[in-house]
């Protein structure tokens, strides 16, 4: 296939997912999405914009217009370093950083996060460690990250690892909280609350549908 065939250059309005902007806007503070004036200040401020496939301003515009697939598959959302430079400058006080985080979460939920892409792998590994032990141990996480994405990096970083070890900065002991059970209860309760909220939402939609008929 030629490049223009494999890459959707045309998007017809009928293909756009118009529920997507509403879904994203349901996050705390999410209605701000519709207040963006497309001034581009965020893109101009972002130190990572040069590396992104769509600038932050475009991500906002595309989310609003329903380009769900492009947005959730973009590298932009994984490149955002959460530096908040854009959010501070935005004339409409939009928390762009939080939108980026929300889009990452959605990409993971939909299973479209790039599978061996290190940023997404690190996010998952970090979370797993904290879920199990309540704390994270950076040195161990980095090892796992390299093992899962690019084992060659372990070798190329061996020297740095050795220097850190000698300075007492590289620990191989996994840190943990004492009350692990409490962490588990806490996180499980969040899951339960989410499930309830989801069922409530479904029920509301069904009721609305029935009333309409």
């Amino acid at each position, binding site marked *: 296939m030629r490049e223009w065939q494999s890459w959707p250059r045309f998007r017809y309005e009928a293909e756009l997912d118009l529920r997507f902007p509403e879904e994203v806007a349901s996050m705390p503070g999410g209605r701000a999405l519709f207040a963006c004036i497309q001034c581009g200040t965020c893109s101009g401020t972002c130190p990572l914009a040069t590396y992104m496939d769509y600038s932050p301003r475009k991500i906002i515009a595309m989310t609003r217009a329903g380009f769900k697939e492009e947005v959730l598959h973009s590298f932009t959302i994984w490149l955002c370093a959460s530096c908040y430079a854009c959010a501070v400058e935005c004339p409409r006080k939009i928390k762009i950083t939080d939108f980026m985080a929300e889009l990452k979460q959605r990409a993971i939920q939909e299973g479209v996060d790039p599978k061996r892409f290190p940023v997404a792998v690190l996010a998952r590994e970090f979370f797993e460690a*904290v879920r199990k032990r309540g704390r994270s141990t950076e040195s161990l996480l980095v090892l796992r990250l390299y093992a899962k994405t690019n084992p060659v990096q372990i070798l190329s970083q061996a020297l740095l690892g050795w220097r850190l070890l000698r300075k007492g*900065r590289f620990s191989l002991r996994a840190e943990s909280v004492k009350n692990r059970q409490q962490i588990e209860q806490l996180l499980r*309760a969040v899951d339960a609350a989410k499930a309830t909220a989801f069922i409530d939402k479904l029920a509301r939609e069904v009721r609305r549908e029935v009333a309409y008929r």
Partner: protein
Amino acid sequence: MKYLYYPGCSLKGTNRAYEESVLASFHALNIELEELEDWNCCGATAYMAVDEMKSFALAARNLALAERQGQDGSPTLIAPCSGCYLVLSKTQHYMEEYSEVSRTIDGALQAARLSYARTVHVRHPLDILVNEIGIPQISSKVQRPLRGLKVACYYGCQIVRPYAAFDDQVNPKTMDHLMRALGAETVDWPLKTRCCGGSLMGTLPDVGVPLSYILLKEALKRGAHVVATACPLCQFNLECYQDKMSRQFQERVEIPVVYFTQLLGLALGVPERQLGMHRLLVPFTLARGGARLHA
């Protein structure tokens, strides 16, 4: 005086020199820091992508524990790591602003037999030093002034953006004031809040390395002898990848990168070892009389 102290994962591992220097320099100022019992990861890790609500829940457990441990009505919790400081403050803001967050988190805390009455103040050590203890008090205790030392003060992204109210978001100055009070000079360095690359340094070095390189290069061009940081990740990125930068950009990049609390401790006369100076990869010591000396 006594405050509660939240170390966070990073200060117990790769960046323990930050913890050592915070504790030692505060001790030299007669301030005691009491570690939060059985603290857990602040939640920054979960926030990165996986689940924001869980990140709030993790942060809230720490706040609840602080409330229990602090004897007075509204305990102050000191968080030196920028990431932790941000997430703990953000959780407080979100619990106040969005009833849905507040309801879910209160429910989760209850399920874990905890409760949080919103009384904790989360503060950064820089804020405490400049706004509680005060510059005059600190300069009166300086034993070895950092005379002749040119410092580039690096605040990084997350201590002044977006929730902190203790300093300006675009051009923060508290660390500059502190360094001058210790006898040092500060260089005018507009990149003081520009992103160092954060965790991209580990995940996508092709993107991370140039970001940190630009910061150091600008600091060197402006004649800085040392970069002072207030964040474990910034310190790690700026210090530990200098070899890599030198190779990638085909020129020697070498400048010590220390914690601002290490410089504070040195000026207060704390022995180097107690400040974790021996853990630096690019060595930094003060010569007699306070002049700069680095190998």
